[in-house]
């Protein structure tokens, strides 16, 4: 299978290129191997300096960055900022052992498209990567009505993974997108935390789900101050109300 995949990868002329910046060699190689198996061309870097040198010569199609890089405890954040300065569209995923709320918020605020903890399994990671690419590809293609969910003012484009409220874009991270998607797909149904985690393909604890919900509400409220479509059902979970 490996032979087949690599054969397939080498044969394709427009292979997506993924950069992994991770200081832990074993992990780096594991990620690289898994992604290569999924048909991506993977370049690995162990620190910010070598990664940045390479990025200045040639930008990858997607970057997966760890926050702490060798001796720089927050080197990933700096790298993300620099990378975002080079390209506004480049999808960036933080993949880190740090799971604090603060780190997630900082990462997303710096322009990362998703923030994953290292608890995520390789298939999940691959799915995330694929989803991000899909989103980018979809942006370039016409809308596919079948993938679009409309709930009142809310419009969710499952293809492009875009969310709008009354036509205005709501900038959700991938995890947040899937949470909203899971809730809005069946309005009125209560989704408990586990279901939301499954939907987002992440392993999170209850608190993290709670803070994700909180953040989602805030993002909608920036567009529509009176937003209250996501309701807490105490002791059970959340549901979408129209």
């Amino acid at each position, binding site marked *: 299978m490996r032979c087949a995949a690599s054969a397939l990868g080498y044969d394709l002329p427009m292979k997506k290129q993924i950069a992994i910046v991770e200081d832990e060699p074993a992990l780096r190689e594991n990620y690289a191997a898994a992604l290569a198996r999924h048909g991506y061309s993977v370049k690995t870097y162990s620190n910010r300096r070598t990664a940045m040198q390479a990025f200045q010569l040639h930008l990858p199609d997607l970057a997966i960055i760890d926050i702490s890089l060798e001796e720089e405890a927050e080197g990933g954040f700096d790298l993300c900022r620099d990378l975002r300065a080079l390209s506004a569209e480049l999808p960036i995923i933080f993949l880190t*052992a740090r799971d604090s*709320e603060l780190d997630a918020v900082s990462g997303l605020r710096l322009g990362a498209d998703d923030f994953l903890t290292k608890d995520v399994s*390789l298939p999940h990671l691959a799915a995330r990567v694929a989803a991000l690419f899909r989103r980018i590809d979809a942006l370039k293609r016409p809308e596919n009505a079948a993938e679009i969910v409309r709930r009142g003012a809310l419009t969710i484009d499952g293809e492009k993974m875009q969310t709008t409220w009354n036509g205005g874009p709501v900038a959700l991270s991938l995890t947040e997108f899937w949470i909203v998607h899971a809730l809005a797909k069946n309005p009125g149904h209560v989704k408990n935390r586990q279901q939301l985690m499954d939907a987002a393909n992440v*392993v999170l604890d209850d*608190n993290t789900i709670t*803070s994700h919900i909180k953040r989602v509400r805030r993002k909608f409220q920036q567009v529509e101050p009176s937003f209250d479509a996501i309701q807490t059902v105490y*002791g059970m979970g959340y549901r979408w109300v129209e």
Partner: protein
Amino acid sequence: MSIRLQLLIVALTTLVLPWAGCQYARELETALRDSQEQSLLASAGTIANALSAQPQRVFPDPEESVKFSPEQGDLYVYPLRNQPLLDGYQEDWDIAASPTELPSTTRYAARAQAGSTERYLYLYVEVDDRHFDPEPANPNPEHDRFDRLDITFRTPDGALKTYFFGTAAPGLIAAQTLVKAQQPPLPDPTAPAAASPPAAASAPAAASPQTGASPGVAAPPEPDRVVEEPRIQAYWLQTSAGYRVEARIPLSFLRTRLWIQAHDGRGSGTAGASAAQEPDGGRLYFTTAGLGDLLGTFVRDGTRATVVDANELKLGTAGNLSANLAGQSEDAAEVWYRRFMTVDTSKFPFYSPSADRLTGNSVQAALAGNAHAEWVRAARGREPLLTAAAPIMVNGRTRGAVFLEQAGDQLLALRDRAVTRLFDLTLLATAAAVALMFGLATWISLRIGRLRTAADSAVGKDGRIRLEMPESASADEIGALSRGFERLLGRLNEHAQYLRTLGGKLSHELRTPLTIVRSSLDNLESEGLGDDQRRYVTRAREGASRLQSILSALGAAARVEESIKQAERVPVDLRDLLSSAVAGYRDGFPQVQFALDLPPMSCPIRGAPDLIVQLLDKLIENAVDFCPPGGTITVRLGLVEGCYVLEVLNDGPPIPEALLGRLFESLFEQREGRDDKPHFGLGLYIVRLVAEFHGGTAVAANRPDGSGAVFSVTLALI
């Protein structure tokens, strides 16, 4: 024993100062006594020597020294300071001695005493004669029987002269004498018989002033007659016990011999001696005139000098004992101190001076020829006296002694003044030391107490450590101790901090290697495995997955604390929140019953609903774990003292008493749950954190009947 008590006892040891003062005072007193003894002895010697040189001024009869014998009717003549009244009472003689018994061969008893002023000899005689036999008119002592007192003395020219006192009625009388008709030169009064009564004018009223022209021999014609001698007067006083005669005889009438004899009118006996019976007796021992003045030149105030003859009879006295140097009245304190410092005087011999003679070791030693000094006691409880005596040698023979007395209280006064001062000062010092030490001890124990209280409460119930200790700014040992405590607490705090963050750090640090394992397993699976290999990979994945859930539980505490910090307060109705949550639990845990007990009104609170729900989740999860299938879990909300009280009661085993207080600690897990899930006790820790965030507390207890547990949480209304 508290520090205060210990220091108080130490302070009391300063009482040794006054004690030492007492010892010193005692030694001082002994030394002073010795020196006083020496000096008094020296004085006595000096005076004795001076007197030896002029014996004629000391002894009435420088040549003669006859033994004094009262049995022979010898009488000591007390020097009288004042002229006594002739009234039959001896009290105004001012002599501290009672009359001496007159020798008597019969039952008839009489006592006599003699005294002299410059011009007169006074006699006082008491006769125990209950029956008064009055003198008849014209008495003749030789024939008539009546109560009679005979006085015989030798006149300066050597003749014997006899007078008698008798009266028909008590009162002032004059002496009478019998004049014989013939001229036998020696009238013998020793055989008094009944006589024809010659007239005797003894009317008291007519007696005293008329000392007319009838002394001596008057009229020859009558054979025997009684003649009055108006210059010898007496007062006859009749008492219930007998009679008393106080008589006055001019000194010029007599020399040193005088006999007294009392006769009973009924003939029952006589008392006293007559010249015929005791020709060698009846001596009068006079004091030496002018000796007092002579002695007075030798002695100072506070010393009394007495010269005695070989019979120990006083010849003269000068000086005054009572001159007290201290003078001022002794206050109570002095007397009080004295108890602790007086030299033991109880072994000093008693000294009881009589008015006529001196006794004691000193005088006896002196009369034996040796000077001697001695401390004596006048009476029990009185200050001791120092006595010293030195012999007066005349022509190589001891004729008498000089006896000096000095009051010990001069010494005492001297000592008291010094010692009282010492005592006062040391007592003051002791009191000050005690007060100071007591104060210091109180202060120190107060500070230590503060430190102890702070140390006791340094580690709070929630495990937080208070780093500040009182007294840490002080420079002394307590300050050092306090700083030591602070350092210790600091280290403890670091350690506690380390332990608190250990879970988070561990979960963080282990996450990367765990991810390596899991991603490697993922990759391995993608390589296409045989069935056997796949089985092992699956097991490895299960292990890794369990490891991961443990790690995320470990890190959860830190995440919860962080999310609580960021929580926002919004108005919530607790009642609605509880009812909706419990509806959810009914779906989620069908194996147990849920009972809901809510107040009728709405229960608004400003809080974080997510956190409250989380709190409730943890309490319910915990209750479900221990509730047997089909058991009931009761959720109750109440309002007590301005707080909401949320209680979750579950059926099931009671919680062991020892665990009750610790259940809400972080990572504390003792209870065995029913499932296989790892329990790190974070649930109840989160409950506590949430309750504290809402200004409340979390408490676990057992139901009184032991049928289950009660977890109650208070939430402040705000």
